[in-house]
C-alpha cells in the first residue's frame, strides 16, 4: 500500500512560494521514493528548478518515513538549515506535509498532490484500493471495493452505463461491478449480489475523524 502522489506543476509551486525566498526541501524515503515523485533524485531536481526560479535552497533531506515519529528527529539534525529557511517545501504525501508543518512552525508548501491510497500494477501505474469509508463491504463484493473501483460507488450492482465490462466514464477502465459479478459467479456466491445493501453510513466517525483503538 502506498500514498500515491503527483508533482504539482512548477507554476503552482512558484505561486505558493510567493514572498518566500529561502526554501528547505524535504523528501520521503518511502511512498514518494517508490512513486518517483519525492525521493532523492526528485528532491535534487527540485533544488535545481527552485534555483532556476531564483530561489535560495538552504538545504534538503530525505526522511526515511516522513509520516512517522522519525520526522521530528530527522528535522532536528538539520535545524540550522531549516531555521535559516522561510519555508519547508515538502515532497512527501500530505501526511508528511502536515507532520513537518506541526513540527517546525515554518510555513509548509506541498510540492505534490496526494491522489489516493493505492497499489502499483506495473512500474508507473497505480490504482486506488480503499477510500477508508469506515465500514468495509469487501466481504460482500468478492474483495473488490465498490466504493473506489466503481466510479459512482454503487452498492447494489452495476449502473446502466456499463458496457462490455468497461465503465461509462472511460473505455479503458474496468467496470467494478462486472468484475465483482465475475468473481462472485466463479465462487458460486452470486446470492451476495442479490442481497440488498442499505445506504452507506457517511458518519461512521464524523470529521474530524478520531479513533481510540484498544
Amino acid at each position, binding site marked *: 500500500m502506498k500514498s500515491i502522489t503527483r508533482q504539482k506543476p512548477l507554476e503552482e509551486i512558484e505561486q505558493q512560494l510567493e514572498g518566500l525566498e529561502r526554501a528547505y526541501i524535504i523528501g520521503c524515503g518511502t511512498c514518494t521514493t517508490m512513486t518517483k515523485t519525492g525521493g532523492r533524485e526528485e528532491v535534487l531536481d527540485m533544488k535545481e528548478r527552485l534555483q532556476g526560479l531564483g530561489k535560495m535552497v538552504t538545504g534538503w533531506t530525505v526522511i526515511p518515513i516522513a509520516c512517522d515519529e522519525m520526522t521530528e528527529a530527522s528535522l532536528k539534525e538539520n535545524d540550522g538549515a531549516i531555521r535559516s529557511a522561510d519555508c519547508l517545501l515538502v515532497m512527501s504525501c500530505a501526511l508528511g506535509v502536515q507532520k513537518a508543518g506541526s513540527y517546525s512552525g515554518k510555513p509548509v508548501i506541498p510540492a505534490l498532490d496526494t491522489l489516493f491510497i493505492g497499489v502499483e500494477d506495473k512500474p508507473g501505474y497505480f490504482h486506488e484500493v480503499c477510500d477508508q469509508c469506515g465500514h468495509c463491504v469487501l466481504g460482500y463484493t468478492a474483495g473488490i471495493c465498490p466504493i473506489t473501483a466503481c*466510479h*459512482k*460507488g*454503487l*452498492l*447494489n*450492482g*452495476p*449502473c*446502466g*452505463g*456499463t*458496457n*462490455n*465490462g468497461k465503465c*461509462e*466514464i472511460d473505455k479503458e477502465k474496468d467496470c467494478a*461491478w*462486472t468484475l465483482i*459479478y465475475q468473481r462472485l*459467479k466463479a465462487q458460486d456466491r*452470486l446470492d451476495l*449480489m*442479490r442481497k*440488498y445493501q*442499505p*445506504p*452507506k453510513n*457517511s458518519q461512521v466517525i464524523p470529521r474530524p475523524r478520531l479513533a481510540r483503538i484498544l
Partner: protein
Amino acid sequence: MAQSFKEALNSGKFIITSEIGPPKGTNLEKMRHHIDLLRDKVDGLNVTDHQSSVMRFPSIGGCLEIKEHGGEPILQMTCRDRNQMALQAELLLAYTRGIRNVLCLTGDSIPIGDHKEAKGVFELDSVQLLRTIRQMESGKDLGGNALDGAVEFCAGAIVTPEANPIEPQLIKFEKKIEAGAEFIQTQAIYDLDNFRKFMEYARKFPVKILAGIVLLVSARMAKYMNENVPGIFVPQNLIAELEAAPKGEALNKGIEIAGRMIAALKKDSICDGVHLMAIGREEVVPDILAAAGINGHKP
C-alpha cells in the same frame, strides 16, 4: 378528468409515455410547446433530470409545468446531485404539488457532462431510492423519523435489456422490483427478437414493462450510438434502411421505423407499452404515434 398514469398502467391498455427535456436556461417556450403538443397523446410525460449530466432547468420544474398544463408528469430523479435529505425533500414537494410518478435512476456520471469538475453525490443508488420512497409512504423518513403527512407514488426504474454481460443487469432489475418498482422503462431496444427473449424472462415479475424507443434520425446517429452508448444496439438492417433513404428523408424513415416497432410490440402484446425518446425532436412524437397507427391515444 384524465386518467392517472397508475390507473393507465393497471387498465391493461397499451401504455405510451414520452419524455421532455427541460431547457438550459429560463426560456420555457419550447418545453411548454412540447407539453401542449404531447400531453393528450400519452399516458405520462417523463421529465429528464440533467440528462447526460448537463445542467438544465430541473426535472421537478418541468413536472410542475406539465401539471399546470393538465398533463401527467413522471418525475425522473437521479442520485447524482442530491444527498438523501435533498432527495426526500424533493419527494415531499413533488407529492404536495400533485406529482404522483417517479422514475428512480442512479444518474449519469459527472465527467461525461458539462460541469466536469463538479462533485457527484451518488449517496443513494436507484435501488435505495426506490426503497426510500416506500419507506416514506409508510410515514417515516430515512432517518426513521415520523413524517407529518406521508407520500404516495407510482415508482419506476429502468433496465438495459441489451447490456453485455446481461446477468448483472438482471440481478439489479430484480432488486429494483423487490424494492417496489411498479413500472420499468427500458433503455432503447431495436432488435425485437432479443427483446422478446428479455420479455419472456421479465414477464415472470409483477411489474409493467415499457419498451424504450429512441427515434433514429440518421444512419450516422445509429452508428454513433452503437459505438458510444452503452447497451444500445441498432441492427445492421435498420442502418441500411436509413442509409437507403433519399436525401432529407432519413428522419421520416426513422419515424417509420419507430412506428413500425411500436405497432409490432402492440400487436403481439410483447410488452405493456412503450416509452418514446425523441431526444430533441419531441415535435415529431405525434408523427411516430400516427406511423404506429395510434391516434388520440389518451381519453
